[in-house]
C-alpha cells in the first residue's frame, strides 16, 4: 500500500473528568476512505479536532507523508492540505451562503459576488443545490450541512475529514455526497468519514477503525466487517436492528390540522394549505427534503410560529400559541437545532433537564429553587438514557453531540406527553442510543401518545411510522399507510415526482 498519507501515533487527550483519546494510533492511505466509528462520546470529534488544530494533544505525534508535523491552528491544518466538514455547522448566521463560502478564499474585491459562479459549478456538478444569496440563519440544518460540504470542495484538500456529514441529509443527498467521495478517492485523496449509519459505512469505507471510550478497539478492512460485528465492537454488546411495529392501538383524533398556511422566516409561503389528522397511539411520519416546510410545520405546532391561515385543533381545542402552555398540555418538542433551541449550552446538565419544569414543585419551593430535586431528577434521567457526562453539573456544551441529544430526549419525553413532535430524534445518536429512542417512542404510543416524526432518514420513517406523508414545497402528499407505499415512491414524492 506504500506510505500512509496521514498517520497518528499514540494521541492522548484528557479533559477534566474524561480521557477523550487514549493513546490512539491510526493511518490513512492515499485513495482510501477510513471510517471512524464509536459510540457517542467515544472521542471521534476530539481526535478530529486535534488533527485540525483546534485542540492540542497532551501526547502523541502526527505524520503527513512520513514527515512529523505540528498542527497548532486550523491555518496550519489548511496549509497541510487538511479539510474539515465539522459535526455542527460552523457558519456565520447573518451572512449569506456566498459570503460564508468566500470567507478566507474569496477574491480581494467583491469576494461574495465573484465566488457565485464557482459555487454554481460545484452545485451543478455534484448535485448539491444551495441558493448563494440566502442568509444562512434561515437555512435548515440539512441545507447548512450542504453549505459545509460545498465549502470543503471549494477549498480542496489532500485529507478530507467528514464528521457525521450525512446525519441530516436525505438519501439522495447522501448518495450525491458518496459520489463526490468516490471521485476524490479516485483522485488519490484520503478521506476520514464519521457516521453512525452502518449501511453507509459498509457502502463507502475501505477500512473501519472503532473507538470505545477513547481507545482504538479494532481496525479492520470493510469486507471483513458486518453491521452486527461493528455494532458489537462499538457498544460492547449485541444490538438488534429489528424494529417491527406491534399492532398499533389507534385512539381518538388527537391533532387536526386544516388548510394550514404559514410564512417562513424569509417571509415566503412555507406551508400552502396543509391538512392531516393524527390519532392517539399513532406515529405519523413526515418525509421531505430539508427546507420544504417541515421546520415551519413543527414550529407552529410547538407554538413558536404564527399561522397565516387555517386551523389547528389539539384534542378538539384550538391550539394555544404558547410553548410553555402547550408543554403543560402534554406537547413535547424535540427540536431540529439541538444546540441553540434544545438546550442552554452554558447551563449544567441538571439545569437543562429541568428547563421545562423548573417553576413547579419539587424544583421550585416558593421563590427558591431546590438543588436536591434538580440533582435527583438529573441522576435518574442521566442513568435512564445513559448520558455520558463527567457529572450532572457539567455545562451541556461540553458534552459530545449525541449526548446533548440524549439530554433533550430525556427532558422532553419525561412524564406522559400526549403529542410528541420529534424532529430528527436520533440525529447524531449512536446505534445503541437510536435503538433506545425508537423503543421509547413506541412505548409512548402504546401509552396513548401521538407522535409526529419528522425525519429525512427513510429507514427510520418506514420502520417506525404507521402512516407517512411527504412535504414538498409546502404542500402535503398523503398520508399513506406504510404498507401501501414503497421506499422508492416516497423518494420520488420528496423530489416532486408522482408516486
Amino acid at each position: 500500500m506504500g506510505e500512509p498519507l496521514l498517520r497518528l501515533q499514540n494521541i492522548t487527550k484528557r479533559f477534566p473528568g474524561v480521557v477523550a483519546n487514549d493513546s490512539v494510533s491510526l493511518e490513512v492511505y492515499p485513495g482510501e476512505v477510513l471510517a471512524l466509528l464509536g459510540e457517542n462520546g467515544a472521542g471521534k470529534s476530539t481526535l478530529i479536532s486535534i488533527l485540525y488544530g483546534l485542540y492540542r494533544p497532551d501526547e502523541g505525534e502526527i505524520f503527513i507523508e512520513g514527515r512529523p508535523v505540528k498542527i497548532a491552528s486550523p491555518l496550519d491544518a489548511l496549509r497541510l492540505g487538511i479539510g474539515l466538514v465539522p459535526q455542527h455547522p460552523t457558519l456565520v448566521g447573518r451572512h449569506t451562503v456566498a459570503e460564508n463560502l468566500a470567507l478566507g478564499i474569496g477574491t480581494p474585491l467583491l469576494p461574495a459576488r465573484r465566488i457565485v459562479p464557482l459555487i454554481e459549478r460545484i452545485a451543478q456538478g455534484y448535485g448539491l443545490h444551495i441558493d448563494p444569496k440566502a442568509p444562512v440563519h434561515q437555512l435548515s440544518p440539512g441545507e447548512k450541512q450542504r453549505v459545509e460540504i460545498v465549502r470543503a470542495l471549494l477549498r480542496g484538500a489532500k485529507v478530507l475529514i467528514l464528521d457525521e456529514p450525512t446525519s441530516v441529509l436525505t438519501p439522495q443527498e447522501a448518495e450525491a455526497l458518496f459520489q463526490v467521495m468516490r471521485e476524490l478517492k479516485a483522485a488519490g485523496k484520503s478521506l476520514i468519514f464519521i457516521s453512525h449509519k452502518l449501511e453507509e459505512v459498509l457502502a463507502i469505507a475501505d477500512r473501519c477503525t472503532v473507538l470505545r471510550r477513547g481507545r482504538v478497539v479494532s481496525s479492520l478492512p470493510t469486507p471483513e466487517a458486518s453491521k452486527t460485528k461493528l455494532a458489537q465492537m462499538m457498544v460492547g454488546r449485541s444490538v438488534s436492528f429489528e424494529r417491527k411495529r406491534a399492532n398499533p392501538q389507534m385512539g381518538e383524533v388527537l391533532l387536526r390540522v386544516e388548510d394550514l398556511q404559514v410564512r417562513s422566516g424569509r417571509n415566503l409561503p412555507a406551508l400552502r394549505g396543509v391538512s392531516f389528522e393524527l390519532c392517539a397511539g399513532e406515529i405519523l411520519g413526515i418525509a421531505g427534503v430539508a427546507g420544504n416546510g417541515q421546520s415551519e410545520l413543527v414550529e407552529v405546532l410547538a407554538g413558536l410560529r404564527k399561522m397565516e391561515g387555517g386551523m389547528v385543533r389539539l384534542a378538539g381545542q384550538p391550539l394555544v400559541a404558547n410553548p410553555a402552555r402547550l408543554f403543560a398540555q402534554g406537547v413535547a418538542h424535540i427540536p431540529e437545532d439541538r444546540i441553540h433551541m434544545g438546550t442552554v449550552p452554558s447551563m449544567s446538565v441538571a439545569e437543562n433537564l429541568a428547563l421545562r419544569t423548573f417553576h413547579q414543585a419539587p424544583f421550585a419551593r416558593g421563590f427558591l429553587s431546590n438543588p436536591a430535586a434538580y440533582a435527583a431528577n438529573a441522576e435518574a434521567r442521566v442513568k435512564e438514557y445513559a448520558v455520558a457526562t463527567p457529572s450532572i453539573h457539567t455545562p451541556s456544551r461540553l458534552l459530545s453531540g449525541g449526548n446533548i441529544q440524549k439530554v433533550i430526549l430525556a427532558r422532553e419525553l419525561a412524564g406522559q406527553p400526549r403529542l410528541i413532535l420529534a424532529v430528527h430524534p436520533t440525529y447524531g445518536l449512536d446505534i445503541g442510543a437510536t435503538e433506545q429512542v425508537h423503543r421509547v417512542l413506541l412505548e409512548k404510543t402504546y401509552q396513548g401518545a401521538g407522535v409526529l416524526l419528522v425525519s429525512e432518514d427513510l429507514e427510520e420513517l418506514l420502520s417506525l411510522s404507521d402512516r407517512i406523508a411527504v412535504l414538498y414545497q409546502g404542500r402535503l402528499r398523503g398520508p399513506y399507510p406504510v404498507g401501501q407505499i414503497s421506499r422508492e415512491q416516497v423518494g420520488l414524492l420528496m423530489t416532486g415526482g408522482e408516486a
Partner: protein
Amino acid sequence: MEEILNALARALSFGTPLLIACLGAILNERVGVVNLGVEGMMALGALAGFALAFGSGVGDGNLWLAVLAAMLAGALAALVHGFVTITLRANQFVSGLALTMLGLGAAGLLGKRFEGQPLFNQPPEWPFTLGAIGLALLLAFVFYATKIGLSLRSVGENPAAADLLGINVLGVRYAAVAVGGALAGLAGAYLSLVYRPSWTDGMTAGLGWIAVALVIFVGWSPLRAIFGAVFFGLLYYLQFRLQGQSGVPSEVFASLPYLLVILVLALSGLRGQQGNAPEALGKPYRRGER
C-alpha cells in the same frame, strides 16, 4: 437662509470629531470588541497632538506630525485595552471604562503645563470634515466589497467559524482595535489642533460617549454614521446658540448631550436597532472552547 447654512456648517464642524470617533468605534465593534474607552483615547490624542505642535514650535508643517502623534497615542492606549480583553479575555466593559478614566486623568495631569496656552495657527476645518466623510465611505466599501471586510465582519459575528477557515481571529481583533484607537486619537487631535487650537482639561466634553452611543443609533453602519454625526452636531450647535440667549442655567444645557444619548438609545431600542449588533460583540474568543 444664511442662518440655516451657517447652522449646517457649524453642525459639520461639531460633527467631524463625532464621526471620526464613531467610525473607530464601529470598526472595533464590528470585530466583536466593545471599547468604552473612546473618551479617554480622545483626551490622550488631543493632548499628544497639542504637545507635539506646541513643543516643536507652531507651524503648519508640523500639523500632520502632530496629528500622527495623536493617532499613535490613541492606538497605543487601545492596544492596552486589546491586550486586557483579547489576550487576557477580561470583561470589555470594565476595561473600557478603566481606559476612559485613566486617559482623562493622565491627560489632565500631563497637560497641566499646556493649560491655557494657545496655538497661533488655526488650520482649516474642511479637509478634516471631508476626510471624515471619505473615511466613512471607505469603511463601508471595505466592509461590504472586500475580502478584508468579510473577514472583519465574520470575526465579529462568529469567531469560531472564521478561525476554522484559517482567519487569524486575534490578529484581526488587535488590528481593528488599534485602528479604532488611532481614529479616536485623531478625533481628539481635531479638537485640540483644529476646532479650538488650545489645550484645556476636559475639552473632550463627553463627545467620546456620544460617539459610542452613536454606534448603536446608526446600527453599526458607517454610512448612516455620517447622518448621525451631522444630526448630533446640529444639536450641539443649537445647544450653544440657545445657551447664550435664554435665562436657563448653563448646567442644563451642558447635560443636554447626555440626555440626548439616553433618548437616542431608547429610540434605537424601540426601532429594534440593537438586533443589528454583531453576534459575538463583547465575547472573548478562545479556540476549542465548546
